[in-house]
């Protein structure tokens, strides 16, 4: 399947890189200086942020009496100060995974509908509305989640508990309204839907027409066309779209802080209220934290930073590897 590629664009002839040397005119020199200066400035800013974060984190971690990686507690103001990211890492990853499991299939479905099924008149408005979802500020999602989603999910939770309690995952062992990691996952799924959808859609639209027509000529149905030509072509695009969505889900703050009932326990019963995420914990604790408490929160932020960096790096790696036949390399 993947061998049907070299139809579309031959690799563009490399554009000759203009010599960095200026022609000697004044304007040229000024422009060169300005652009070089902004480039350097950016690097300096990034480096100083990194140094600042690491320095403050080092202060916090060096005085931490608990294990930064395994302690199930967050009490930098205590005597002795004890804090650890285990619960936060767990909550962040679990809620993001729930979000991905829900959002990616739906997003791919929407993208396929827009690119291959919907009549042209319908496709544009739907695409527009999906993009619009991305423009909603996250606190609005949080408000909506707390006011509408949480009361609504009470029934679904009972149902899941009744019929799928045996899966352990959906066994609700604690009472309480569903301000749980599961609810957060659903909310995050809605929030990352637009980005996953629009990137996937762009990729699907770039499937070479000739691939599809070839499949049709062989007698393939619409579904078979998608299965044989569109999905293989778009696979790396879907993956990178998912990674972009994952990046957003990992760092989401206000929506999670509004919906979740945080606690410092790890439980795979995702319907139980409790748990926490990095960003939510920082938002919740920053106000009352003293100077040392803030250093501790910065340390947890650094871990989130690294986590997000890894996810983005993985996404880029995948895109780069499949660059030659993916449209998502923009």
């Amino acid at each position, binding site marked *: 399947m993947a061998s049907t590629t070299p139809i579309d664009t031959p690799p563009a002839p490399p554009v000759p890189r203009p010599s960095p040397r200026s022609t000697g005119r004044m304007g040229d020199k000024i422009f060169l200086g300005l652009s070089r200066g902004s480039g350097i400035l950016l690097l300096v800013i990034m480096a100083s942020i990194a140094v600042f974060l690491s320095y403050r984190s080092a202060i916090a971690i060096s005085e931490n009496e608990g294990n930064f990686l395994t302690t199930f507690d*967050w*009490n930098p*103001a*205590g005597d002795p100060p004890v804090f650890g990211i285990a619960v936060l890492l767990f909550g962040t990853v679990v809620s993001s995974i729930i979000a991905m499991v829900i959002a990616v299939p739906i997003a791919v479905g929407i993208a396929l509908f827009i690119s291959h099924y919907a009549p042209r008149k319908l496709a544009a408005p739907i695409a527009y509305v999906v993009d619009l979802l991305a423009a909603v500020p996250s*606190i609005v999602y*949080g*408000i909506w989640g*707390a*006011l*509408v989603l*949480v*009361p*609504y999910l*009470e*029934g679904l939770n009972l149902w899941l508990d009744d019929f799928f309690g045996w899966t352990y995952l959906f066994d609700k062992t*604690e*009472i*309480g*309204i569903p*301000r749980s990691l599961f609810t957060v996952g659903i909310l995050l799924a809605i929030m990352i839907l637009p980005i996953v959808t629009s990137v996937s859609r762009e990729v699907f639209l770039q499937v070479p027409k000739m691939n599809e027509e070839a499949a049709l000529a062989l007698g393939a149905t619409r579904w078979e066309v998608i299965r044989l030509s569109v999905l293989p072509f778009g696979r790396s695009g879907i993956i990178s779209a998912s990674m972009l969505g994952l990046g957003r889900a990992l760092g989401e703050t*206000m929506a999670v*802080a*509004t919906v979740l*009932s*945080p*606690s*410092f*326990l790890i439980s795979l019963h995702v319907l139980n*209220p*409790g748990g926490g995420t990095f960003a939510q914990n920082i*938002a*919740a*604790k*920053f*106000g*009352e*934290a*003293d*100077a040392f*408490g803030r250093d501790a929160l910065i340390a947890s932020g650094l871990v989130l930073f690294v986590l997000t960096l890894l996810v983005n790096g993985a996404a880029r790696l995948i895109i780069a590897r499949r660059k030659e036949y993916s449209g998502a390399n923009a």
Partner: protein
Amino acid sequence: MKLQRKNRLRATALGALAVSGALVLTACGSDDNTGGGTAGTGEKTTAASNVDCGKAKGQLRASGSSAQKNAMDLWVKNYMAACSGVEINYNSSSSGEGIVAFNQGTVGFAGSDSALKPEEVADSKKMCKTGQGINLPMVGGPVAIGFHLEGVDALTLDAPTLAKIFDSKIKKWNDPAIAKLNDGVKLPDKAIQAFHRSEDSGTTQNLGKYLGAAAPSDWKYEAEKKWPAPGGQAASGSSGVAAQVKQVDGAIGYFELSYAKSQSIPTVDINTGGATPVKATSENASKAIAAAKIKGTGKDLALDLDYTTKAEGAYPLVLVTYEVVCDTGNKPETLDTVKSFLSYTASDDGQKILTDAGYAPIPAEINAKVRETIGSLS
């Protein structure tokens, strides 16, 4: 289905508060306030009396506890109406933030719902060059235990029962321990949903101190700003906890009395071991604060509250917020304004406002020392 819809409507009406609690978090951005456009002279001013503007002038920035926000709002409004040319700006972020700002020297005074810790006092010495930070008890108030139980309007609990409820040891409303304290009340067979604050809070710390003092065998956690017990559910801010209690049948939570009043949430009467259970009211809180001893040394007036008081009509679960200033070495440009403003808040007029706002005035004996100390600030 119908029930669900009703719940949803209720949630919509009240959840706004839960959300506003979260919004408060975002509003905690630190204002980097330097100095302000003051033209004050560094001289000593008048003694305390009503609104005596003294040599107050220019702009005074302050920051700190949101527990005393409503009182501060009223005070600032009255004071600024009386003293033209003075602008006071109290940023009710949080105690922690207020103390950080105070020790960085960006505010004239800080509000805090617990006395300065030793290391915070040590930090303050850099700012108060010749002196150190001291605590002036200014606002008292009851911490109400609100509950929501269909068919039950009045409930009496004692410290051990409260401790067990918040520690998830008592899980049902019809538990014999609760029934014993509530003769004649028909308690439903419903799960208790205990709510606590998700962020660090002085209110949590005060509840912890109370439970630790009045029910030491049932509450073994240390009184910290962070919620210590593993169970229960969390919500952000007093407003968030109140909104959840209002919304969820079977819920119990703790917050300042004003939140219970404004949302008409019924509050628990506390059985202190005295003759009759005590209601959470401003007067009853003042009676309990009167039993406090001053534990601060020198000019520091930090209080040691007596949580185990059995005095008639004294509501033991109280919170006192302090204003934090330097005993000597206050910034000269704001000193006069700080003295004048705090003299007003500690005056009879200033303290009288508290009762109407759901707080409790500081008892006269302690208040007299506060006024004396304010007069001697330099």
